[in-house]
């Protein structure tokens, strides 16, 4: 029973990892007309 719960937890965690890594890291803009 515990093994089954652990396996389900591992499966759930592995599905979350790629989404947790996904993000905008940096944005760079070049602008005109700045004083």
């Amino acid at each position, binding site marked *: 029973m515990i093994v089954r719960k652990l396996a389900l937890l591992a499966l759930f965690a592995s599905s979350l990892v*790629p*989404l947790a890594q*996904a993000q905008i890291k*940096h*944005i*760079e*803009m*070049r*602008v005109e007309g700045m004083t």
Partner: protein
Amino acid sequence: MKQHLGRQSGVEKVDVSLIDGKVDVTPKDDGQIDPIQLLKATYDSGVTAAEMTMTAQGKIVKDPSGNLALKINPNQSFVITPNELSKTLEPLADSQTVVTVRGHLFKKPAGKKKAAPATPLKLLLLEVQKKD
């Protein structure tokens, strides 16, 4: 402009270089930042955005029209403009692979004084930095 951009949701830090007109925006750790809002905030502060480049991590997906897109989260994805680099990412479409890419989200057309960004923004890949 620095203060105006700094107030936008998801912005951690804004660095402005007056000499070369460069603005660096560092998102907060959660990465929940909206480039369109940043462009709007830039226009609202009275300057013209000539170019916007983004570095982002996400998964490559195919949208219902068959276009490749970079999916950052369930609510945020950017259609990828086809080029040589995008072809190298085609095999990763709809896989679990997370890629880190850098690309243009907006570039003002040459000769125009002010150009409103097309929405939704399209990502023109400049570099594929990492595939996990």
